């Protein structure tokens, strides 16, 4: 990547912001975001991540992106996963082991039904708009 000028930085920001907000890059409108800080990984986030990959692959879903992020702050219920599905409010699931990951794919993403006992509140409103 070439060095950015001021103008190019602005342009890049606009582009990337649209991508993040629309979340419809390359026709992928479902996002699974796994918290992969040290705590999350210690609690098994890597296994969770792999379980999502496997389950989505097996279900033949092509509209799902799986991404990593840092710590969401809910250390008591790691691994944590945010699930964003069109027409559904985005929610954070906690204590997501590979088994729960499978249920999230089958019920939440495919069936559009939320799963009991694993949703946690997002800790704060986003200050960046």
């Amino acid at each position, binding site marked *: 990547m070439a060095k950015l000028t001021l103008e190019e930085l602005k342009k890049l920001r606009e582009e990337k912001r649209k991508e993040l907000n629309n979340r419809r890059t390359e026709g992928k409108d479902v996002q699974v975001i796994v918290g992969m800080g*040290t705590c999350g*990984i*210690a609690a098994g986030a890597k296994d969770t991540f792999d379980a999502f990959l496997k389950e989505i692959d097996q279900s033949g879903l092509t509209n799902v992106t799986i991404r990593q992020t840092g710590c969401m702050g809910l*250390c008591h219920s790691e691994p944590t996963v945010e699930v964003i599905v069109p027409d559904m409010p985005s929610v954070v699931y906690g204590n997501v082991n590979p088994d729960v990951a499978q249920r999230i794919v089958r019920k939440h993403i495919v069936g559009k039904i939320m799963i009991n006992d694993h949703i946690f509140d997002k800790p704060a409103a986003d200050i960046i708009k």
Partner: protein
Amino acid sequence: MLSLEIQFISLTTEIAEVLILNTTMEKPAADDKKLTPELKEFIRQWKPKPGNLIMVLHRVQEHFGYIPRNVAFEVADLLDVPLARVYGVVTFYHLFKLKKPGRFKIAVCMGTACYLKGGEDIIKELENILGVGLNAVTPDGEFSVEAVRCLGCCGLAPVLSVNGEVHGNVKKDQLAEIVAKYKGT
């Protein structure tokens, strides 16, 4: 090496440390470790940068698992610093080791949250299972146990790590299983 040691005499405050060095670092007979060409290259790259000693020692320990006696001499030589400074730095910082640890390093967190949630019991139980206490290596060279200050996973307390892999919410009766998982692999 003689010239290097003469250098120390002027540094009166550091003489005592050199004497200790000769007795506490592993004896040369049992320690034929040498800097590898890669390590020498790493040292050559860092040499012009001021304040390089700690970064070099990190790299050396990453390779050997500890700072072998002969290697400490080589590092001092290559970086052109008194051996006593190398020894001073190695012994000041908890992370640097003069003794070879086990093939699997078990680090039991004794940060506050883990301490309150039974970190001490974990160490005692490991002692039962492995037959050696803190900062010692099992006779087969497989395991060593150390107590560390906060692995930064307080939400999962009590925690321990084996060669950097963190296990959280550890219960006493899971320890045998955790040890078995690594043994002989």
